[in-house]
């Protein structure tokens, strides 16, 4: 069994984080740039790497590419997870996703997993998510200096079976064994519940970048028992951004005659301005837009908070229905909720807090919602707590147990297109149901079953999960075979089905056709790189990374004598650099990653004064009238060793 750290991952629409338990406290592991949040943005570098495939970057560096090369960048891919072509049409109108299917001849298969065109390559949504997960995995591995192979990943509580499966697939592609999918609001409750041996009923209101969840839990003796959950997997801060963006684009078109929608890079700039304005309006009463347009005009506008609140009211109002339904399903009135926890960046908006206050009668009862933990981090912290529970190694979590529920009812399509519910929503998982089927025609040897998820009366209105074909039924008179089918929803909220024919004792064979999803073979073929798994491979990767870093600094030192700053160095300084260079050049050929790193750092130290001299030279060049850009290019030539935690390149 693999031991070692089990990390907790919040794979968010906007940002992703990785955390672990440090003793009895969960902490977020910072990324290479020192920031806890890794933007859920994936970009293909324009420059092709040595292997021929373009380099993939993730996070802040990918976000920078959004304005320059928007067609090579993707964000908010979580909105596409586990969804079919027909379901994502609305997303396509609002987000700059480019479907690869558009380019192919013939109509696309609606049951295919959509493929996203990114530059010259195509990816499924789980593959894009896998790149984000791999970045988090690597951040953790750098932090621990050891491989990380097991993780808990959070998903919106209201995610259906296909969305959960897609998330699990992404983990596998990233070289992670997903020990558990945890619902985001429940994870937040775990993070809050850690310190206090609380008893009572709490509601978690989680409005994130792209999803909304409400969960009601009962806490008792360390057991976190979810009573009910509800939500909307396509409602979040993104929707507010899109609203502001649409207004700005319309006004720019009307006032300046510029249709920015044809310039993806410019749209992105306006989008960033919208996000800034939104964030500012959480603390200020007024935000300003000031954007330079391609024709040289400026779009300037003031946005008072009152106007902003009026604009977003319809978006926020969509969270009220799920809250009321969750209360009704739990059989509780708002006054019976002891505490409310706020999760997700969007809960910083004062109007959201007001709405929560109204929904749960907080002020009237002298209560305040919990916001002590950073709403951007609390889900990852809770995932780390759950990871610790699963690792079973720690005193601080040994008394804790999470009992979650399935958010949606599971049903079978009945004759006439109705739905026979077999597992009700808000059932504690794992949950199971056994159904019996028979044949309608003499000698019939197979029976088709259509499994759906949802609350609507007609199967056509529910989410189709899978079609099962029970095959190999021994030929008998109609109605005589008795096929027992067992449906089991596991602790991840994912459905498993098994069947047997009872009269003949034969195990019936089941062909599962997931409605939208990847087959095992497809997932297998999309595993990012096999060498992410074993420990020897981990050592190999550390070595490759160390060599890459060494090569980068050696190449820069090679160019150094051509710089005028070189002549300003004293003889012994030049000699010290040469010695450190030779040592690294020699070690680079060897197999010791630690030695290569150490020699790289030594060379970096030796060249520090040279780097400073070059910096000064570049600045004075700029002052002599050269453009800042040219100076910048020279600066980029400066010798700086990659930081010990420099981002790994993906090849």
């Amino acid at each position, binding site marked *: 069994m693999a031991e070692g750290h089990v990390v907790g991952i919040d794979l968010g629409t906007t940002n992703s984080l990785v955390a672990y338990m440090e003793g009895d406290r969960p902490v977020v592991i910072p990324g290479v740039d020192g920031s806890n949040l890794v933007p859920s943005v994936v970009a293909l570098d324009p420059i092709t790497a040595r292997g021929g495939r373009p380099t993939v970057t993730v996070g802040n560096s990918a976000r920078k590419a959004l304005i320059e090369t928007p067609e090579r960048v993707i964000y908010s891919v979580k909105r596409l997870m586990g969804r079919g072509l027909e379901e994502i049409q609305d997303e396509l109108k609002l987000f700059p996703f480019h479907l690869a299917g558009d380019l192919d001849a013939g109509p696309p298969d609606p049951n295919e997993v959509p493929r996203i065109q990114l530059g010259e390559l195509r990816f499924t949504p789980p593959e894009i998510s896998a790149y984000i997960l791999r970045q988090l995995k690597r951040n953790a591995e750098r932090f621990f200096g050891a491989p990380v192979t097991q993780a808990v990943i959070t998903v919106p509580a209201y995610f259906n079976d296909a969305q959960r499966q897609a998330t699990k697939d992404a983990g596998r592609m990233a070289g992670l064994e997903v020990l558990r999918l945890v619902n985001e609001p429940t994870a937040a409750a775990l993070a809050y519940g850690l310190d206090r041996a609380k008893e009572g009923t709490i509601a978690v209101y989680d409005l994130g970048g792209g999803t909304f969840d409400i969960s009601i839990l009962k806490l008792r003796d360390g057991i976190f028992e979810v009573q009910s959950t509800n939500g909307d997997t396509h409602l979040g801060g993104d929707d507010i951004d899109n609203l502001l963006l649409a207004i700005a684009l319309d006004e720019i078109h009307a006032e300046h005659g510029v249709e920015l929608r044809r310039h993806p890079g410019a749209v992105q700039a306006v989008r960033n301005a919208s996000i800034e304005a939104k964030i500012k309006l959480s603390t200020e009463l007024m935000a300003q837009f000031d954007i330079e347009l391609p024709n040289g005009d400026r779009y300037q506008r003031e946005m008072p908070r009152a106007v902003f609140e009026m604009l977003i009211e319809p978006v926020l109002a969509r969270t009220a229905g799920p809250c009321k339904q969750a209360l009704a399903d739990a059989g509780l009135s708002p006054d019976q909720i002891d505490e409310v926890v706020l999760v997700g960046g969007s809960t910083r908006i004062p109007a959201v807090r007001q709405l929560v206050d109204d929904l749960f009668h907080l002020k009237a009862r002298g209560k305040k919602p919990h916001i002590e933990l950073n709403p951007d981090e609390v889900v990852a912290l809770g995932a780390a707590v759950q990871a610790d529970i*699963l690792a079973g190694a720690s005193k601080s979590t040994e008394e804790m147990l999470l009992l979650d529920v399935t958010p949606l009812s599971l049903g079978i399509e009945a*004759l006439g297109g109705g739905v026979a519910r077999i597992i009700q929503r808000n059932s504690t998982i794992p949950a199971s149901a056994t159904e019996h089927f028979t044949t309608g025609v003499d000698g019939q040897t197979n029976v088709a079953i259509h499994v759906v998820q949802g609350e609507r009366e007609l199967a056509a209105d529910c989410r189709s999960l899978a079609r099962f074909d029970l095959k190999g039924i021994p030929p008998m008179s109609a109605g005589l075979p008795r096929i027992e089918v067992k449906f089991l929803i596991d*602790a991840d909220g994912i459905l498993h089905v098994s069947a047997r024919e009872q009269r003949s004792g034969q195990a019936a064979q089941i062909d599962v056709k997931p409605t939208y999803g990847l087959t095992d073979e497809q997932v297998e073929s999309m595993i990012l790189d096999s060498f992410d798994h074993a420990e020897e491979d981990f050592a190999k990767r550390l070595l490759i990374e160390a060599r890459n870093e060494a090569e980068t600094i050696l190449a820069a030192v090679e160019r150094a004598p051509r710089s005028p700053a070189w002549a300003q160095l004293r003889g012994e300084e030049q000699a010290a650099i040469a010695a450190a260079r030779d040592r690294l050049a020699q070690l680079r050929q060897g197999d010791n990653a630690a030695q290569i790193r150490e020699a790289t750092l030594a060379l970096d130290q030796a060249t520090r004064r040279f780097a400073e001299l070059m910096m000064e030279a570049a600045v004075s060049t700029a002052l002599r009238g050269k453009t800042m850009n040219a100076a910048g290019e020279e600066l980029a030539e400066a010798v700086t060793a990659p930081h010990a935690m420099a981002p790994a390149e993906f090849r």
Partner: protein
Amino acid sequence: MIKVLDSAVPVACWSCSIGHNDSTLFCPHCSKIQPPPGGDYFSVFGLEPKLNLDLAALEHEFHRLSRRLHPDRFARAEENEKQWSLADTALLNDAYRTLKDPLRRTEYLLKLKGAEIGEEHSGPENTNKDRKDPSRVPADLLEEVFELNMQLEEMRAARNTGQDDPDLQASLEQAKRRFDGLLVEVDQDLRNQWQLWDEADAAARKTAEKTMVALLDRRRYLSNLVRDVNETLGA
């Protein structure tokens, strides 16, 4: 008459090989988790089939068993133990969900005793039944239900044409109160039967079971009716 205990089949523990009674979640000798036992939902909690249950004790036992059985406790265990933990916990959850709810508990017990419960859906063939199967109208309510259905039709028609009919509204609300009251009565009758069944001998139990099947039918009919009235009033 020879009494056969259905849980008397001895099974060898997969881990320590010592035989044990098969209705156990853990081996009594080595404490290892076992594949799902064969007994009913009551036996999961070590209970005899009963209709009056101490819900606080049931919850306590549910939590105690969850702590030992839950897949979270077996995340790094061998594959077979993982599978049994999953199956056992599903059984525990299904059992708790059924037993903690008085109506589900009653239906479950009656089914265990071989009763046919109406509107069960045990497969795709017998779903989609009409909610208001006229043959199932309780005889004493025939007239009232007939009247109510007429009023509901009128109300819907009025709604469709955008009219308000305060008299009809008031009359429907009165009917709703009347049927709500009848529901409370049925629930009280059911509780009385629980008491009877729990304390009775086999013959008297049969009578109580028949009464409860009828009461459940009546209850289902009434609650569908109240739901219809609520939907129409709330529309």
